C-alpha cells in the first residue's frame, strides 16, 4: 500500500497514474484561462476589418485573413529602412547576446562557486544586489558611459550593455553550487585542466540552468528597445522590436488594433518557438542526467 502510494506521488513520473487526474483537473482549466488573452491576440490578428468593429465584441474570428499582416508590412515598407533589415538586426543581436551572455555567466559562475579568492563573497553579493537593478532608473548615466566609450552609433551598443545578466549568473551559480566538489576533484585527478572542467563537468551538469538563461537573454535581446531609442541614430542598426513598439503605441483602435495584434504576434512567436526548443533541452537534461 505504502509503496503503491509512493509510486503515485512521485515527482517526474514516467507514466500516467490515477492520482494525476486531480492535477489535470486543476491545471488544464487554469492554463486555458491563462492562455485566453493570448488566444485573443491570435484571433484579433486574423480578423478582417468588419469583425474588428463589430458590437458586441467577439472572441473568435469567423473569416480569418492575412490583411492585418500585409497592411503592417505595407506600412513598414514605406519607412526608409526595409522591414527585413530590422528583422535581420534583431536576429543577429539576439544570437550574439545569447551566446555571449551564456559563456560569460557560466564561466563566472564556476569561479564564484568553486574557487576561493579575496572579495568573492563581495562580488557575489554585488551581483545579487544587481538583480534588483532597474534599467530605467539608470538610463541617463548609462547613456553617458556609452557615449564616453565611443559606442554610440555602433552596432555593438545593441549587445554589450545587456550581455552581463546578474540574473543569469545568480541562477547558474545556484546550480553549480549543487555540483559536488568531489566530482571536480576526480576530474583533476584524471588530469583535467580548468577549461576541461568547465566544458566537461560544469556545463553538462548545468544544462537546465543554461537553457533557462539562454531563454532569458534571448527575450531581453529580442525585446530590447533601449539601444535603438537612446544610443543609435543610424536607422539601419535599429531592431525590429523598436519599430514594432513605436508602431503599436500609436495605433490602438479599429484597424490599427488588428495591425497591433499582428505586430504583437510577430514579436511573440519567436519567443514562443525558442522556449519550446529550449524547454525540451531542459526536460531532457532533467530526465537523463541531473545534478544529484
Amino acid at each position, binding site marked *: 500500500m505504502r509503496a503503491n502510494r509512493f509510486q503515485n506521488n512521485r515527482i517526474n513520473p514516467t507514466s500516467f497514474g490515477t492520482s494525476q487526474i486531480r492535477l489535470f483537473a486543476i491545471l488544464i482549466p487554469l492554463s486555458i484561462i491563462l492562455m485566453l488573452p493570448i488566444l485573443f491576440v491570435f484571433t484579433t490578428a486574423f480578423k478582417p476589418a468588419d469583425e474588428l468593429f463589430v458590437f458586441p465584441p467577439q472572441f473568435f474570428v469567423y473569416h480569418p485573413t492575412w490583411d492585418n499582416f500585409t497592411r503592417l508590412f505595407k506600412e513598414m515598407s514605406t519607412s526608409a529602412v526595409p522591414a527585413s533589415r530590422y528583422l535581420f538586426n534583431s536576429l543577429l543581436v539576439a544570437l550574439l547576446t545569447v551566446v555571449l551572455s551564456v559563456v560569460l555567466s557560466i564561466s*563566472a559562475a564556476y569561479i564564484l562557486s568553486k574557487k576561493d579568492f579575496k572579495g568573492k563573497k563581495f562580488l557575489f553579493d554585488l551581483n545579487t544586489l544587481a538583480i534588483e*537593478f532597474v534599467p530605467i532608473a539608470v538610463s541617463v*548615466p548609462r547613456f553617458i558611459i556609452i557615449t564616453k566609450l565611443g559606442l554610440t552609433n555602433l552596432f555593438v551598443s545593441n549587445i554589450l550593455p545587456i550581455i*552581463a545578466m546578474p540574473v543569469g549568473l545568480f541562477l547558474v551559480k545556484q546550480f553549480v553550487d549543487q555540483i559536488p566538489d568531489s566530482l571536480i576533484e576526480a576530474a583533476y585527478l584524471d588530469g583535467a585542466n580548468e577549461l576541461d572542467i568547465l566544458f566537461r563537468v560544469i556545463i553538462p551538469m548545468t544544462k537546465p540552468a543554461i537553457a533557462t538563461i539562454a531563454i532569458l537573454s534571448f527575450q531581453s535581446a529580442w525585446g530590447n528597445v533601449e539601444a535603438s531609442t537612446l544610443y543609435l541614430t543610424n536607422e539601419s542598426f535599429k531592431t525590429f522590436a523598436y519599430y514594432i513598439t513605436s508602431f503599436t503605441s500609436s495605433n490602438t483602435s479599429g484597424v490599427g488594433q488588428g495591425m497591433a495584434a499582428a505586430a504583437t504576434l510577430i514579436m511573440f512567436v519567436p519567443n514562443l518557438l525558442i522556449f519550446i526548443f529550449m524547454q525540451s533541452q531542459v526536460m531532457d537534461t532533467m530526465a537523463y542526467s541531473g545534478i*544529484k
Partner: protein
Amino acid sequence: MANGLGIKQTLKKLFSTPKKERATTAVRQGGWSLLLLVPYLLAFLTFIVAPVIAAIAFSFTDFDSIRNPNWVFLDNYIYLFTQDATFMQNILPNTLLFAVVVGPCSFILSFFLAWMLAQLPRIPRNILALLIYAPSIVSGVAVQVIWVTIFNGDASGFLNSILLSWGWISAPIQWLQDKDFLMMVMIIVTVWGSTGVGFLAMLSGILNIDPALYEAAYIDGMRNRWQEIRYVTLPSMKPQLLFGAVMSMVSTLQAGGIGVALSGSNPTPNYAGDLIVNHIEDYAFTRYEMGFASCVSVILLVFIFVLTKLVYRLFESNRKKQAKRIVIGEDGHPMIEREEKIR
C-alpha cells in the same frame, strides 16, 4: 548517477557537506583560472555597477542634463519626503500595495503550479508548462492589445459586454479610468504575466530533487503530500525558491509602465496607477530633472534592497528549522523528527 551512491552520501552532499573539508582541497584554489571571471566582470562593472554609482552621485546634485550639475547634498531627498505630495500620497502607497499583493501572489502561484506540473509525466508537463509560461513572454508587448480591449470602459469592452448581457451590471464600468478599479486591473494583469523565470526555476528545482529522498522519507514514516512538501521538496529546492522569491519581488517593483499602458494616460487618472518607476520616468524624461529622478531611483533601489534582505532572512531561518527536522539515522536513512520531539 545517484543510484550508485548510498542515500547517506547523497544526503550528506545535499545538506551537510562540512565547510572545512571543502576548503582544504585543491578545488578551491583560484590561481589563473580567476581570469574566467574577467569578461563577465568587465561587462558587469561597465554597464551595471558604474551607472548605479553615477545615479547615486547624481542624486546629490541638481543635474538637469544641460547645465553643469551643482552639489545640493540632501536637498533632493528632503524635497521628496517633505514637499513631494504626489510621492507621499499616491506613489509610495500605490507601490507598497502593488508589491505586497503581486509579489507573494506570483510566488505562491508559481510554486504550486510548478509543484503540480512536476508530478505529471513528461509530455503533458511540457505542454502545460508552455501554456503557463507563455503569458510572461507576451506580457510586455501585449498589454495594450489584449487587456485594453478586455477592460475597455464602454460597452464594447469584453468584460463590460459580458457583465451587461448577464445583467450583473446596469452600466459599463470604467475599469481603466476609475481610480478604484485601475489598481485592481494592474494587479490582475501583472500576476497573469508573472509565471515566468521564477516559475521555470522552481520547476527545474523540483524536478532536480533526488527521488531517493522521497523514497527514504516515505520508508521512514512520511505520510502525505503536505509532509512531502514541507520536509523534502521545500528544503531540497531552496536555491530555486530563493531565486523565485527575489525574481517575483524585483519584477513586481520594476513594473511601472503597466498603469500608463492600461489607462492610456500619463500620469494615470488621479495618480491611481502610478508607481515609483513612473515617478522616475516622469522626472527624468518629462521634466529633465535628472538629479531628482536619480534620488527617486536610489530610494527604489534601497527599498528593493531592504525587501531582499528580509526574504533572505526568512529563508535562512527556514533552513535551520528544516535541518533540525531531517536527520540521518544510524542505518543511513534520513529520519524525520516527529513534531512532538521538536516541541
